[in-house]
């Protein structure tokens, strides 16, 4: 198993543009365990040695969908590339889906009661028959669940898992699918945050020097 804490640049560092030995790299290195385990999570989920109940192609399609929805450019490009490596035929279908699926969030409804005044509506994504034919029933159901978790997570319920079971997902697969979507939700945001830290770490521009 890949368990290499000595990598010079983790995937998060590559995507956020953190150069080795830069101020942000040294700042992140204070959290060496977090840095290493975030990398290990990525390797286990996206480059599995034994994919088990969720195939490599399924993992890459779901990840490219999740990264595409958040719209952080470097992660989006990276996951489109990982999908291209294993299943190029899916890339154009996924692009088309990403153009249609609503990206805003988080929205959704609470269990009825005092929080109902906070309920916010939105547009769930459902595959068209043409898209379902390209993706197959397992992946079509997985992307519908991923869209739910990514854009209106508080609407998740047991019926959503029942739809996945009906599409052929087993218990181990449901755990992997949930981990994959949830991990991507973490990774796109840490890359977004760290990219901003990198942008703020450069010396002040002449404009601010002028104000000093």
């Amino acid at each position, binding site marked *: 198993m890949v368990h290499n804490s000595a990598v010079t640049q983790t995937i998060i560092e590559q995507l956020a543009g953190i150069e080795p030995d830069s101020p942000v790299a040294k700042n*992140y290195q204070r*959290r060496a365990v*977090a840095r290493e385990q975030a990398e290990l999570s990525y390797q286990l989920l996206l480059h599995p040695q034994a994919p088990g109940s969720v195939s490599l192609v399924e993992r890459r399609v779901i990840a490219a969908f999740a990264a595409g929805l958040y719209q952080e450019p470097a992660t989006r490009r990276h996951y489109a590339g990982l999908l291209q490596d294993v299943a190029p035929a899916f890339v154009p279908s996924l692009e088309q889906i990403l153009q249609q699926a609503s990206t*805003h969030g988080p929205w959704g409804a609470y269990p009825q009661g005092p929080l109902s005044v*906070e309920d916010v509506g939105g547009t769930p994504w459902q595959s068209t028959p043409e898209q379902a034919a390209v993706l197959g029933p397992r992946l079509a159901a997985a992307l519908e669940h991923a869209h739910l*978790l990514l*854009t209106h997570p*508080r609407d*998740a319920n047991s019926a959503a898992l029942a739809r996945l079971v009906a599409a052929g997902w087993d218990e181990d697969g449901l755990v992997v699918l949930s981990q994959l979507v949830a991990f991507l939700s973490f990774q796109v*945001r840490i890359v977004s945050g760290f990219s901003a830290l990198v942008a703020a770490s450069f010396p002040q521009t002449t404009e601010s020097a002028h104000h000093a």
Partner: protein
Amino acid sequence: MPDILSYPDAKPVNTFTLRQLDWLPWIAPLDPQDLTQQHYDGLVDSARAKSAYFRLLARDPDVLGARTRLDKDIFYSAGGLPRAERELAAAAVSRFNGCIYCASVHARFSVQFSKDDKDVNALLEHGTKSVTDGRNAEVVQTAVTLTENGNKFGKKDIDRLQRAGFSPEEILDLIQAAAFFNWANRLMLSLGEAA
């Protein structure tokens, strides 16, 4: 075909609360007597085998192990952002995403470490816009901007945190805590319910 578990007698939770809640899985966790060394390695602390949530995640033990070690380093590591503020970030992300169970756990931790429940109670009762003063307002605002879809966080947010007195080390810890709770919330919401 796997069974979907249901709890017709469980009381659904329809408010954010500091009270201790239960979390009930919709698919079967592993049976405690079926746990192997690989599962215990994933659980990291053997006491976590008591939790249905962790025994469910143990269906993918290696990923659970990496996630558990990541979680502990983001929240328990020494120095940098005070623990109360890391927990406040976790509670604010959970409040904004709508994970009632996660918010209750981390709101309690935040109060335990800050010894002050004013902002946490406002956050739970009235939402993320109700924390308006001092460092806590910056923590909650950062949690919300990162959590909102559409990649809205940027250099302007770092500049604002620096003007408010946050060091680069504290800012990095805050980004990690807020990003991580977008992972935690979606796992708990996908796989079970609060009761």
